[in-house]
């Protein structure tokens, strides 16, 4: 085990995958000479040269489509979209092409592609630079979507994504880049579509992903100490495919669920998870499923407004309280 930042985990994995497979190349805006807007690709142009680390003009649809075309001929592109907000410009190539080519042409041509992109708010970047648009992609058959919360998962999932024969949206988060964690040594991978129980518990389950999973783990540990509440935290890690089994088994055990997500509540990840739980664990639920999600506004710039719009630890604790009160009533009844 070695401790490193989420950023370092991504950087090292990209470097190793470039070394491992000649077909892997990086492509995106400002990833070479500028070394990446968030410096994930720092030093890689010098080490691998402009053939393997390709700077593009500002044309998301063009260079994402280029990567898809290159993948059709057997290369394994890793695209960086500077932030997920700019991915709107590449929707046609991702949704109408990357997601469709294998199926629509009768399984003749896989598209082994990774699109790395950070989402998330909290940096006062305001409405067009702070979004969580991952559900757009999780909605689409043919795509895979992963959203690691820890440096270890970032590394293991990025390796798997690069070696997968399908288009994978790899969601990062601006506020996670400097977070630190233990990362196993060696060429380990984490399967796409497997959730992880970050902390075991028996009173209720918090289901989350990406940065919110880190906050959830924090809250769960704190409430365990302060109130002796035993909270299970499940990080789904992959949004598509979604690991129903781990989530459902956890809620069958704890009988209560809170979904904690940074995206907007309506039609969000929580909506999908809540629907899954009522379909597959209806008889085990002792309380309505709670969703703690982003306020339904374009994220504002001003600090107090931004903080009010983002889902917070405080809101999560309030949701725990709502469920805990219900629990007490049940116990007294």
């Amino acid at each position: 085990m070695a401790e490193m930042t989420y950023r370092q985990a991504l950087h090292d994995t990209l470097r190793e995958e470039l070394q491992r497979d000649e077909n892997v190349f990086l492509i995106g805006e400002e990833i070479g000479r500028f070394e990446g807007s968030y410096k994930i690709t720092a030093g890689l142009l010098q080490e691998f040269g402009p053939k393997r680390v390709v700077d593009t003009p500002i044309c998301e649809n063009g260079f994402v489509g280029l990567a898809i075309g290159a993948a059709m001929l057997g290369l394994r592109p890793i695209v960086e979209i500077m932030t997920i907000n700019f991915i709107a410009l590449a929707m046609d190539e991702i949704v109408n092409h990357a997601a469709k080519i294998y199926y629509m042409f009768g399984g003749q041509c896989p598209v082994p592609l990774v699109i790395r992109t950070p989402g998330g708010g909290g940096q006062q970047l305001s409405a067009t630079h702070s979004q969580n648009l991952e559900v757009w992609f999780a909605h689409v058959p043919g795509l895979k979507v992963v959203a690691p919360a820890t440096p270890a998962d970032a590394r293991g999932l990025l390796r798997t994504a690069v070696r997968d024969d399908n288009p994978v949206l790899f969601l990062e988060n601006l506020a996670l880049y400097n977070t630190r964690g233990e990362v196993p040594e060696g060429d380990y991978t984490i399967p796409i579509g497997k959730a992880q129980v970050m902390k075991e518990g028996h009173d209720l389950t918090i289901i989350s992903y990406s940065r919110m999973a880190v906050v959830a783990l924090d809250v769960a540990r704190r409430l365990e100490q302060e109130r002796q509440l035993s909270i299970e935290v499940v990080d789904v890690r992959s949004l598509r495919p979604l690991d129903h089994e781990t989530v459902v088994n956890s809620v069958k055990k704890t009988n209560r669920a809170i979904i904690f997500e940074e995206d907007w509540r309506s039609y969000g990840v929580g909506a999908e998870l809540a629907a899954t739980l009522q379909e597959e664990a209806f008889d085990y639920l002792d309380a309505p499923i709670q969703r703690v999600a982003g306020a339904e506004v374009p994220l504002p710039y001003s600090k107090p407004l931004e903080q009010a719009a983002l889902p917070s630890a405080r809101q999560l604790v309030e949701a725990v309280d709502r469920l805990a009160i219900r629990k007490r009533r049940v116990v007294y009844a």
Partner: protein
Amino acid sequence: METRQQRKAAAQGAGPADSRPPASLLKGTDRETLLNYYYQMVLIRYFEEKAGEMYTRARIGGYCHLNLGEEATVVGFCAGLEADDYVYTNYREHGYAICRGISPAVVMAELFGKKTGCSSGRGGSMHLFDLKRRFMGGYGIVGGQLPLAVGAAFALAYRGAREIVACQMGDGTTNGGPFHESLNLAKLYRLPVVFLVVNNQYGMGTRVDQGSAVPDLYRKACAYDMRSERVDGTDLLAVLEAVRTAARIAREEREPSLIEAVSYRFRGHSVVDPDRYRPEDEVRRWRERDPILLYATRLKEAGLMDEATRQELETRAQQEVEEAVRFAEESELPSVEELYDFVYAGEGGR
């Protein structure tokens, strides 16, 4: 380069001047090859007429866009490439697929939604595909295929391969972002790609000059310092020569090109389009310039095709189309059990 007057005439829908291609090409190509071009043109003509008929008989569903009237452009384009080059097209692609070696039977089966179709019945008319023949897809979203074609060319350059990519599109595509992003990337990275704009003068019902501030579409390439030219799309040999030259430059010099072939579709945008937006005399004038008749006349005048040969070729093409329909009719539909096959690669498809 053409005169300004010619450009103006073409932009007004009159078509480029009826220029003869260099005689050297006719003389330098063997008779069998030239007759085969004729065969391919009439094969497309019969195939598309039959596809229209099968559509009205409800054997074919969805959208169905025909190459009728564009046969010289289709055959000339495909003939200008080598067998191992990669081709991307838009959704008006039946003829291109056939010319690149996918059998008409397998194309017709795809139109019928059969398991034996070239996309296993998953794609339909707009999404023909054959990896072995490097026919990399018909694409239903206008402009969608351009970045993909540029990416395929990127992969070829990455590997130092000698093949090239050819990418067909319609006139309306030149007004959208993917066109401009793709031309810029192709030129910036010096990728081996040939863009072909089939200017059939209408994007659905919108005339080129109503949709494009620069109706001389080939001139748009100059924004990217890319070589480009306009050819008479009713002249098979003119298209062939332009594509062959552009392909050679892409192969040897890693320079992309754009070719505009001025053409005309004999029918509406798709089979169901009643075609009310085009003046009757304009349609009539272009039908008189039927590319198949023009080419037949040239072959006859050169003493390369007598009437008996012409009839024999046409009969053979008709038979091949009949055989295609028979194959499509008799083929099995995909099983509903296979619905989830091919969603994901490498996982039993699911």
